[in-house]
């Protein structure tokens, strides 16, 4: 029986996009804030919003939404959901501060040390959020499809890809990224190279991780093997192979490799747009498959 519906899928996806966008933005800021300024700003502008929508959706997925505040009066280190509720609260607060920090006018007038501390905290918190979405599922021994070590890693990498894709998408739609600095070929190329390099490394890692997940599940216990068959040959198989593996990994990976290899200075926003949209769709689809198929999988008791 399905207890967690598409609302949870949406929540896991939105938390992943937010965490990924924040992580990529702060990483780019630490590497070179001038050269990759567009990525820094785009990431900061995206980060707070998906997770806020996700939190609203999460509250309405509860059977008793009016009691949601009990999550924030309790702390149980053994419950991933309790720890996660605190992490996403602090993450949202930090992402809003980071958002204001990156607006064109500096409204906060923070000292460099303070803003650096906020960035470090944001990096740590976004890592925690991206990890938590997978750990939330993988710690349940009752659900063999979820109870694997590869799942949190898979969702973590997918989160960073989704964040990067959301940034790429925003840069396709608003190439100036709400700034009035002139658009030069050099800035476009710098930011594109960053995105494509990141995409290439991450998508390749996701491909490896998916392979490890599939082989590991297939060679594990009987419950795991029957759980795996739900996604590889059951009713989710087309979505999994076409929606996630082909559209979500392979095509964006080819697009990123093509962009990196050809070294053409002309900007190809349409290719970025398609690759980023496909990567985001794949990220949503894989979460939907895992959330739904995981609930159908059962540990064999005797």
């Amino acid at each position, binding site marked *: 029986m399905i*207890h*967690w519906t598409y609302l949870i899928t949406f929540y896991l996806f939105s938390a992943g996009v937010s965490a990924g966008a924040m992580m990529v933005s702060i990483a780019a800021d630490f590497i070179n804030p001038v050269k990759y300024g567009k990525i820094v700003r785009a990431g900061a502008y995206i980060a707070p919003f998906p997770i806020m929508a996700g939190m609203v959706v999460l509250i309405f*997925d*509860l*059977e*008793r939404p009016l*009691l*949601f505040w*009990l*999550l924030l009066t*309790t702390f*149980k280190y*053994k*419950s*991933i*959901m*309790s720890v996660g*509720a605190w992490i996403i609260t602090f993450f949202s607060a930090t992402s809003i501060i980071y958002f204001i920090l990156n607006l064109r006018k500096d409204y906060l007038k923070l000292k460099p040390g303070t803003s650096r501390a906020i960035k470090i905290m944001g990096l740590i918190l976004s890592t925690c959020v991206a990890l938590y979405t997978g750990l939330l599922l993988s*710690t*349940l*021994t*009752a*659900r063999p499809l979820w109870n694997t070590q590869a799942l949190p890693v898979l969702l973590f990498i997918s989160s960073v890809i989704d964040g990067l894709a959301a940034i790429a998408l925003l840069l396709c739609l608003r190439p100036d990224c709400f700034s009035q600095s002139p658009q030069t070929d050099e800035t476009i190329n710098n930011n594109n190279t960053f995105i494509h390099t990141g995409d290439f490394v991450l998508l390749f890692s996701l491909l490896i991780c998916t392979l490890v997940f599939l082989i590991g599940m297939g060679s594990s216990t009987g419950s795991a093997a029957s759980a795996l068959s739900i996604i590889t040959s059951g009713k989710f198989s087309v979505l999994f192979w076409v929606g996630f593996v082909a559209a979500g990994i392979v095509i964006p990976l080819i697009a990123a490799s093509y962009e990196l290899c050809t070294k053409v200075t002309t900007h190809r926003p349409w290719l970025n747009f398609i690759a980023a949209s496909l990567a985001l769709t794949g990220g949503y689809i894989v979460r939907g498959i895992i959330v739904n198929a995981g*609930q159908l999988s*059962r*540990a064999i*008791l*005797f």
Partner: protein
Amino acid sequence: MTDKKPKWAMLIDTTKCVGCLACVAACHNQNELLVPEFFNRVEEREFGHFPNYNRRFFPMQCQHCDRPPCVGVCPTGASYKRSDGIVAIDTQRCIGCKYCILSCPYNARSVNKEHGYVHKCSFCTSLIEKNEQPACVTTCPTRVRVFGDLNDPNSEISRLSASKKTVQIGKDLNTNPSIYYIIG
């Protein structure tokens, strides 16, 4: 009786079960459940292949685990383990996130459709406190179920649960259930 606190447990002898579902009806009645909700159920399991073939009725319910996954995952502390071994739910604190339902390998929990909290078998706590037995135990016409205190060495459950024939199901999921089965 000993002075020690009780540790409640149940033994289910599937070789005696005829699948009359009286325990399900008694449970439904005792806990005043709405129609689609059940705290216990009787599954049908098949063993072997023809001609060496066996089909058994298999009563299932909350196993009142000693290491209950549902208590560990509950974010608000609504699910808890009582000192007498019963896994209980503080319905006032339950927000209905359904994380515990997904964490349960025995599929023992369900959502109360009327109030939204999660509920399940409580070993009929209100009856035990009156020194009575759970409704499913007293109702069973073939004496499939034996209920008692594991801390009392003279109780029937202590003697039966120590026998070689009994098993705890799903034990390798690190739950250590308080329900013992004779599968036969």
